[in-house]
């Protein structure tokens, strides 16, 4: 891409006004002051010649490419996708034209040229099993690649639940020994953008923040940007009044489901899931899982695959109560055993009874 981003956008029919509105929206979504919107617009609009735009290196590990799909596979050349015009995306296996040795060279060149300054984006988990052999690129394990790339990165974005928390590969029994980026790298700022996949505007918002301010936005205890992961789905869900009234869909497509009642009983993990789906929604605000009639899976939370089951309500036991029958039997048996011991003791006391006479009242 050549020239300022704003010109590129103009060529694609996106007016200056629309662009400014977009940046203002982005800023307000992240709870930043109005001045930040303007700053974002100016920073991105002015995005200079390619060589001086911030370098972004995107390494894919044990991933499904869904995160890339999310941000790029938009229904029209969307603003989200254009963020990549504001940066210099120096390495992205799915999007780049190069392959093979050329691709490897581009990677190492970018890392060397921008040492200490590039933004490293990782999607997919890092397998540790079999010394990392489960996922190798160009003959090197993901683990090695991560450690090397992290050394020169200014900051790391763990894109998607796999990179952020280990994701699907980590689900029991975790055959590849998958772990999160933050389990490996301890000495660089890491921001987690979980979701399976993450919402496009969340990715954009974080990148925009980085581009504008040179730093990562405020994060919660799990390293997620508070602007997007600060509230639970449950607290922003439009079906919440039904939860509070106790109106639940009991099965898919039943009366309650058709009336748009709460999906808690069908396993919705909204109450324990932090994400922006309920407000920002998907497909440029078209809809989101609950609105489509399916409970939230909790995909932006660690270990969501092993949280007891997508269709098991939070109030239900995560696993069947296996020990209960045996425990009851053991309890009853213990009681019976004690009752026999008690019977024997009482009997012995009776047999040993020494009739009290008057003399026996004195010690």
């Amino acid at each position, binding site marked *: 891409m050549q020239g300022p981003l704003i010109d590129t956008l103009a060529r694609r029919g996106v007016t200056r006004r629309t662009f400014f509105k977009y940046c203002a929206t982005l800023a307000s979504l992240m709870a930043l002051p109005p001045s930040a919107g303007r700053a974002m617009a100016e920073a991105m609009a002015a995005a200079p010649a390619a060589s001086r735009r911030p370098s972004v290196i995107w390494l894919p590990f044990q991933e499904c490419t869904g995160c890339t799909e999310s941000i790029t596979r938009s229904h029209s050349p969307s603003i989200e996708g254009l963020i990549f015009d504001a940066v210099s995306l120096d390495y992205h296996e799915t999007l780049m034209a190069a392959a093979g040795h050329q691709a490897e060279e581009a990677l190492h060149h970018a890392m060397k040229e921008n040492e200490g300054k590039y933004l490293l984006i990782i999607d997919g988990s890092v397998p540790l099993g079999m010394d990392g052999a489960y996922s190798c690129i160009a003959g090197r394990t993901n683990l090695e690649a991560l450690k090397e790339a992290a050394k020169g990165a200014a900051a790391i974005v763990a894109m998607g639940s796999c990179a952020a*928390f280990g994701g699907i590969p980590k689900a029991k029994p975790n055959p590849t020994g998958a772990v999160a980026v933050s389990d490996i790298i301890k000495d660089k700022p890491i921001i987690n953008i979980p979701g399976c996949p993450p919402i496009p505007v969340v990715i954009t918002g974080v990148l925009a923040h980085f581009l504008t301010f040179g730093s990562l936005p405020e994060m*919660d*205890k*799990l390293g997620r940007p508070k602007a997007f992961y600060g509230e*639970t789905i*449950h*607290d922003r869900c439009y079906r919440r009044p039904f*939860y*509070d*009234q*106790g109106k*639940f869909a009991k099965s898919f497509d039943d009366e309650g489901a058709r009336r748009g009642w709460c999906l*808690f*009983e069908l396993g919705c993990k909204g*109450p*324990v899931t*932090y994400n922006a789906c309920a407000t920002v929604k998907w497909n440029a605000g078209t809809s989101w899982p609950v609105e489509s009639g399916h409970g939230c899976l*909790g995909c932006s*939370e*660690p*270990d*969501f695959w*092993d*949280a*007891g089951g997508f269709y098991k*309500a*939070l*109030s*239900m*036991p*995560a*696993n069947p*109560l*296996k*020990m*209960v029958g*045996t*425990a*009851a039997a*053991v*309890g*009853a048996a*213990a*009681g*019976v055993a*004690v*009752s026999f011991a*008690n*019977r024997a003791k*009482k009997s012995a006391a009776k047999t040993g009874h020494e009739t009290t006479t008057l003399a026996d009242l004195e010690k």
Partner: protein
Amino acid sequence: MNEMQFLTWVRGTGLNIAVSIFLLGVLWRLVEIYSLGRKKDLSAPRSVAGASGWNTMFRRSVPPKGMGMVKKSPVSYIGGYVFHIGLALIVFLFAPHIKLIESLTGLSWPGLPSQVIDLVSVITIGAMLVVLADRINKPVKRYLSTFEDWFTWLVTFLPVLTGWMAVQHLLLPYTTMLALHILSVELLLIVLPFTKLFHAFTLWGSRYYNGAVNGHKGVAV
């Protein structure tokens, strides 16, 4: 262990252990207590309407007539009623709880709106604090109280407090608060059969025996 794993553990393994120990303990203790039996009363009985074990089982839920007991110890009665009824309402009429019971037994019934349960929780918490204060301040209660009394108060209080805090999003993130709530309930379940909390099961037998022995004499207690 992260919060989600903690929550999944308390919902899974933790619950399994707690419910198992609970059932084990309840059955063991019930048999241990009631297998001692009692000798048949060979004296000639009196039969008076309203004087029997069954009558007393239910009648004893209200203060005895005309003895001015409520005035003598209002906190015992009023505080006691409020928090017991409050606990029952919260446990049995809050949707997520009903759902849990349904998953364990197959039975379910309509619940109360969450805002009502919220109010009931606040009142219950208040009542429990008042009851605690009374135990500290009143000479007889203080005199009788042992570590077990304070511990069982805490073990009963924590589920109500943590449940309410979770819904209100106080102190810790919801996922953690919910996990702590479930954990506190598991603690309650585990200690219940082995402490004075077991009165939930034995008071029926006690009232029955009392009513039967006195009913034999024609006195309605």
